[in-house]
């Protein structure tokens, strides 16, 4: 998948999990940029992304991300 395709699918996951149709994420997006992206919703988002893309992250990987783009790079490394 291209980065753009991944972002589009992740965006749909954010919309579903956070119940906000107006969300439009980019590679530069961080939790500070999205309403309701709090610590518990972060967990819901990770679970939803792992389930949707049929992959697993490690806790170290999650803690290393500074923005959505770094998560996508991590996903690309896993063959997405």
């Amino acid at each position: 998948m291209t980065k753009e395709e991944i972002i589009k699918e992740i965006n749909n996951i954010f919309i579903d999990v956070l119940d906000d149709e107006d969300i439009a994420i980019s590679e530069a997006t961080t939790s500070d940029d999205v309403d309701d992206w709090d610590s518990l919703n972060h967990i819901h988002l990770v679970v939803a992304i792992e389930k949707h893309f049929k992959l697993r992250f490690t806790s170290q990987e999650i803690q290393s991300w500074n923005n959505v783009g770094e998560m996508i790079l991590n996903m690309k490394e896993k063959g997405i």
Partner: protein
Amino acid sequence: MFKVGDEFNSKFKISKDIYDGFVNIFNDKNPMHVDLDFAKNHGYSGIVMHGNILNGFISHFIGEQLPVKNIIILSQNIKFNNPVYLNDLLQFNASVFEIYESVNVINFKFKFINQKNITAAKGKVQIKKLD
């Protein structure tokens, strides 16, 4: 600590104390739950227990019956398949079907089966193990 396929079994009885406690604390006195004639007129054999009493049993399962205490419930859903009546004895079964180690999340499927071997309710509950 948990692995996919782990199973937990227990029994819960809808006792008069539990029923009275629920009615008094949450003040849901819908006639389906407190008026025998009303419930019978709508096709039930007795007053129908509040479905959310079963959610209380889920709380007990998560809070008291799992081998770890540093956990919180992240989400829960339940489908009520058949009515539950006062003094019903429910066999409860829960099993781990998904684990997300990156965020310490464990997903359980559960079901309640009554003494007539009829499924009363089933659903899923998701917990997080805290550091």
